[in-house]
C-alpha cells in the first residue's frame, strides 16, 4: 500500500547498515562504474579487489538467493580513466515512478549522489505531464484500487440486505465526491513521494529528461552529467488508430472522468479492462466489454478465465466475445456507437480502450546514444537491467519485463545494489504473485495448469469451487474458485490460483510458501484458520485430476464435496 510504503520508506532510511558515514564517504570516492560484462563476471569469481569495503560489506549476512559476485580487476582497470572524471551525479534517473524512486532512494542510501527528473503532475499522462509517484500512484494501482473500493460498496449493500440491513431507497452514488476525495489522496501521495526523495537526499528536477550522450541528460535545456543514467519512464496506454479513436478514453482518463458514464463500452480483455468493468458496474453504469478472443485474461489459468467471466456476467456486466472494434461513430445526440466485426452497438456515453500499454521510449534520445529497443519499443536490458550502453540502465515498465509495481521495486533495489553496494544482484522473476482487482478479484502465483503441464508433464490438480458462507446468507450467486497445481514427481506446489473475495490478500502468504518451494504435504500439514476461505488451500485432500504424459491422461475426477466446515 502506498501509504504504508511511504511509512516503510521513511523508516528504512534509518536502516543501520546505511548509516556508517565512513562507508558512505568511501563509496563516493570509489570507482563504482564497473561494466557488468556477463561473460567475465559469471565465469570467474575473482577475488575481491576493493578489499577494505568489500570485507566489511561481506561480513553482513549473506543472501541465500543471490550468489555474490565480485568485481574483477579487469573491470576496474577498464574504468580507471572514467573513474577520475567528475560527474554532477553518480546516478541520474529519468522518471520518478515506482522503479525510479526506489532505485534513486536506495542508491542515495548506499552513498551515491542522485538526481531524478520527472514531468509536472497531472492525473492524465502525456509527453509533457506525469508526476512524482508515476503510474502506480497517479494513474494505476492506487486510484484504481480506490475506485474498486468505492464501487464494491454496491455489492456490499446487496449482501448486507441478506444480513438484515434495510435501506429506505437504493443507495445513490455521487461521482463528484469520489473524484474530489480520490484526487486529494493522489495529491497527498505525490507529496509523500517527493518527501521520500528529499529525505533520501535525492535531487528532484521537474522537467523532461532526454539522454544526450552516455553520461549526459538534458532536462529542458539544462545539462547534467552522471556516471550512470537510469531510464524508468514507464509505459502509457496505447489506443489503436481506428476511425473515431479520438472519441475514445484510456485508463488515465477513465480514472478521472468529470461525470459517471451512463453506458460504457470497454474494449479489451486484459486485467485493466476487467478492473474498470467492475468499477463502472459497481457504480451503476451499464457496462459492455468487448474482447477479441473467446475468453478474458489471456495468459491466466484457463479455469480462472472461465470462472471470472461467469462471475462478472452474474453481476451484470455484458461480455461481447470475439468482437474486434473497427470504428467509433459519434451520433448527433452526442452518444457513441461501437462498430465491430459483428455489428454495431449504440448509445454509449463513453468508449474506453484498454488495449495494451506501450513503453515511453519516444523522444528520449535513445536512438542517438545507441540504446537498443525491442520491436514494441521497450528498452532491451540484460539480467542486471543494463542496456546496450554500459552506463545506461533501465527498470520498470519501460523494459516490458513483468509490468508490476513490486517488480519495478525489485528491479530498482537490485540495480542500486549492483551499482552502489558492490553486490551485483539480478531481480528474481520466479513465483512473482499478482492480482487482478476485478469483482470478484483474482490472485495467482506460480504456474497456470497449462504452463505446468507443458513444463512438468505430470501434475496433480486440486480444485475447490464453493459458495462462501457469506453468500449462503446474502443469497447472491457469488462463488469462490481455488486451484493448486502440484508436480506429481516432486510434490512441489507449482502454482496457486484463486478467484473470489479477498483473493489478493489471501495469495500473498501462499506466495511466500511457493517461493520457498514448499510441497503439497507442507500445505496439508498446516492447520486451517476456521472459518475462512483461505483454509480451503490447506484442506484439499483429493486431486480433482491427475495429468500424465504417458499413459493417457487420467481423467478420473473425484470431486470431494465441500462441506461448509470441512469436517
Amino acid at each position: 500500500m502506498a501509504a504504508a510504503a511511504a511509512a516503510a520508506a521513511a523508516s528504512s532510511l534509518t536502516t543501520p547498515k546505511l548509516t556508517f558515514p565512513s562507508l558512505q564517504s568511501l563509496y563516493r570516492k570509489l570507482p563504482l562504474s564497473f561494466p557488468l560484462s556477463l561473460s567475465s563476471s559469471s565465469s570467474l569469481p575473482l577475488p575481491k579487489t576493493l578489499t577494505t569495503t568489500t570485507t566489511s560489506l561481506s561480513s553482513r549476512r549473506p543472501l541465500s538467493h543471490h550468489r555474490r559476485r565480485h568485481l574483477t580487476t579487469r573491470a576496474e582497470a577498464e574504468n580507471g580513466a572514467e573513474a577520475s572524471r567528475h560527474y554532477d551525479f553518480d546516478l541520474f534517473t529519468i522518471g520518478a515512478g515506482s522503479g525510479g524512486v526506489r532505485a534513486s532512494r536506495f542508491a542515495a542510501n548506499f552513498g551515491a549522489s542522485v538526481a531524478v527528473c520527472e514531468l509536472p503532475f497531472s492525473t492524465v499522462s502525456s509527453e509533457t505531464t506525469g508526476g512524482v509517484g508515476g503510474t502506480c500512484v497517479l494513474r494505476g494501482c492506487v486510484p484504481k484500487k480506490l475506485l474498486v473500493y468505492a464501487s464494491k460498496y454496491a455489492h456490499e449493500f446487496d449482501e448486507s440486505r441478506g444480513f438484515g440491513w434495510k435501506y429506505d431507497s437504493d443507495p445513490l452514488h455521487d461521482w463528484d465526491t469520489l473524484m474530489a476525495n480520490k484526487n486529494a489522496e493522489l495529491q497527498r501521495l505525490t507529496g509523500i513521494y517527493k518527501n521520500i526523495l528529499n529525505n533520501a537526499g535525492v535531487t528532484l528536477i521537474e522537467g523532461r529528461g532526454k539522454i544526450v550522450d552516455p553520461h549526459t541528460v538534458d532536462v529542458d535545456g539544462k545539462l547534467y552529467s552522471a556516471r550512470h543514467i537510469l531510464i524508468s519512464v514507464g509505459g502509457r496506454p496505447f489506443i489503436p488508430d481506428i476511425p473515431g479513436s479520438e472519441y475514445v478514453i484510456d485508463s488515465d482518463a477513465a480514472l478521472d472522468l468529470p461525470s459517471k458514464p451512463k453506458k460504457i463500452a470497454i474494449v479489451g480483455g486484459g486485467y485493466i479492462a476487467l478492473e474498470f468493468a467492475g468499477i463502472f458496474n459497481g457504480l451503476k453504469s451499464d457496462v459492455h466489454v468487448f474482447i477479441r478472443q473467446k475468453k478474458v485474461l489471456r495468459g491466466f489459468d484457463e479455469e480462472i478465465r472461465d470462472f471470472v467471466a461467469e462471475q462478472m456476467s452474474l453481476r451484470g456486466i455484458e461480455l461481447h466475445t470475439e468482437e474486434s472494434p473497427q470504428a467509433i461513430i459519434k451520433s448527433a445526440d452526442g452518444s457513441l456507437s461501437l462498430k465491430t466485426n459483428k455489428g454495431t452497438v449504440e448509445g454509449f456515453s463513453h468508449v474506453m480502450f484498454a488495449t495494451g500499454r506501450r513503453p515511453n521510449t519516444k523522444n528520449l534520445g535513445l536512438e542517438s546514444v545507441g540504446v537498443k529497443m525491442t520491436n514494441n519499443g521497450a528498452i532491451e536490458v540484460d539480467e542486471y537491467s543494463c542496456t546496450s550502453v554500459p552506463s545506461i540502465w533501465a527498470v520498470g515498465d519501460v523494459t516490458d519485463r513483468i509490468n508490476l509495481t513490486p517488480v519495478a521495486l525489485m528491479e530498482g533495489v537490485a540495480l542500486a545494489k549492483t551499482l552502489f553496494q558492490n553486490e551485483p544482484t539480478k531481480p528474481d522473476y520466479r513465483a512473482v504473485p499478482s492480482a487482478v482487482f476485478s469483482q470478484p478479484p483474482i490472485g495467482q502465483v506460480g504456474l497456470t495448469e497449462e504452463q505446468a503441464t507443458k513444463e512438468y508433464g505430470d501434475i496433480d490438480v486440486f480444485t475447490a469451487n464453493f459458495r462462501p458462507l457469506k453468500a449462503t446468507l446474502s443469497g447472491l450467486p457469488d462463488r469462490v474458485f481455488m486451484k493448486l497445481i502440484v508436480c506429481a514427481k516432486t510434490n512441489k506446489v507449482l502454482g496457486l490460483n484463486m478467484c473470489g473475495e479477498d483473493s489478493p490478500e489471501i495469495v500473498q502468504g501462499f506466495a511466500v510458501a511457493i517461493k520457498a518451494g514448499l510441497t503439497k504435504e507442507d500445505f496439508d500439514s498446516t492447520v486451517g484458520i476456521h472459518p475462512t476461505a483461505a483454509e480451503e488451500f490447506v484442506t484439499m485432500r483429493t486431486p480433482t485430476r491427475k495429468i500424465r504424459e504417458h499413459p493417457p491422461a487420467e481423467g478420473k475426477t473425484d470431486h470431494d464435496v465441500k462441506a461448509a466446515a470441512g469436517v
Partner: protein
Amino acid sequence: MLIDGEVNHTNQVEEEAHFDFDLFVIGAGSGGVRAARFSANYGAKVGICELPFHPISSEVIGGVGGTCVIRGCVPKKILVYGANFGGEIEDAKNYGWELNEKVDYNWKKLLQKKTDEIIRLNGIYKRLLSNAGVKLYEGEGKIVGPNEVEVTQLDGTKLSYSAKHILIATGSRAQRLAIPGQELAITSDEALSLEDLPKRAVVFGGGYIAVEFASIWRGMGATVDLFFRKELPLRGFDDEMRDVVARNLEGRGINLHPRTNLTELTKTEKGIKIYTDHKEELLADVVLFATGRAPNTKRLNLEAVGVELDNAGAVKVDEYSRTNIPTIWAVGDVTNRMNLTPVALMEGTCFAKTVFAGQPTKPDYNHIPCAVFSIPPFSVVGLSEEQALEQANGDVLVFTSSFNPMKNTISGRQEKTVMKLVVDAETDKVLGASMCGPDAPEIMQGIAVALKCGATKQQFDSTVGIHPSAAEEFVTMRSVTRRVTASGKPKANT
C-alpha cells in the same frame, strides 16, 4: 482414498470382533464426526451418538455438527459478517455513497437466516456421516465399561453397544460466573439466538468470545461495555498486539473496562443492573458472560470406568489422544488442549490413522494459526514476542508495521492495521506472525504454511508483494523495529 457406503472391511479383525462396533463415538461435533468418518473410510465399523439438535446447548441438548456449526464458529461468523456492514456503511459515505444517517437493521431476519443456515449444515453433517457408513444414534451417550456404551434415546429407552474402541468427543460448554444474579446473564449460546438486538450490552470476559460479541453488537449499533480482569483483553496473545486490539475495539466505539470484575446483577424495571468491584453501576439489556468454557465430562460416567480427568474436568490423554483406559480415547475440546475446530479435526484424523490405518500419528501442535473475529479481526500464527523470548536461544528481532490501510485514506476511518513478525536473530527463522486489521484471518493462512515449514525472514523478503494489498506488508518489512535479548530488554531501538 475415500471408501463410501457399506463397510465390509472388518474381516481382518474377525477373530476378536465380537463387538457391535470397531468404534463408538460419543459426540458428533468437529472432532467426533471427523474421527468417525475417517475411521469408517479406513474400514472400521463405526457408531456415533449425539444429543438432539437445538441452537442452545444443555446437558440433554446438542446436535450433529457440534459447537462449531451450531453454537460457535459458523453462527458467530455469520453475525460478524452482519455486524461488519455497520462499519462499511459508515465508510461508504466518503466514497460518494449517499445513505441515511441511520440505516435500519432487521435483527430477526438475520437470526432466522442464521438458524436456517445451521439447520442446513446440521443436515449436511448427518449426510456426511451416513455417506461414510457411520451409524448415527440420537440420544445421550454414557460409558458403561471399557468396551461398552449406553445410549439413552429421547423416549427414555436405552440402547447398549459394545465397541472395540470408544472415543469421547463431547466438547465443552460455556460457563457462568458464580456471582449474585448470575441467572440474569446469558452465555454465548443464548447470545447467538437472542430474540431482540440489545440496545445496551455488557460483556464480561477478556477472551476471544468476549471481544467477538462486543464487536458484533457494536457493529449493529448497540452501546457495548466490555469488562475484563486484566490490563488488556486476549490473555496469552502477543502483548503489543493485545494493545492494538484494545485500541481498535475502542476506536469502533466499545467502552473498555480493564481490571474490573462484575460483582452482582440485579433486575430492575429499566434493565439489568450491573455492579462492579470499582463501585460502578450500569444498566444493560443483555449481560453476556464469556468467562470460559468447561469440558462436557459430567454425565459420561467416566468415574465408574476410571477415566482420569484433570483439575479443569478435561479428559486426560496421551500424545495419541488415548486416555488412561487403553480402549477409550478422546479428542477435541473435551481434552482442553487447544480448543479450535481445525485442531479437533487434526486430532480426529490422527486418531483414525493411529487406530484404524496402522499409522500411529501424533497431532502436531506447532504453528497452529488462529483468528479472533473481532472487528477489525486479529490473527496469529507461531509465537508471540514473549513466547519467542522464552524459547529462542539468542536474540529475537521484531519487525512491526503500523499503517493506515488504503481504504481508510478516503473513508477517513482512524484505524491502523498492525502487523508483526518475530524472527530468531541467529537462524533467521520467522517464529511468529500476527496481524490486526481487515482480512487478517484470510491473510494469515498462507503465512501459516510458510511458518509451519520453517520459512526464514530472507524467504519472506525475497517474495514479491501483491500490490496494492495489506498483505504485501508482510514481505516488505525491511527494517528491524527492535532487537530484544532473552533478558527481555530491547538492545537497540532504531
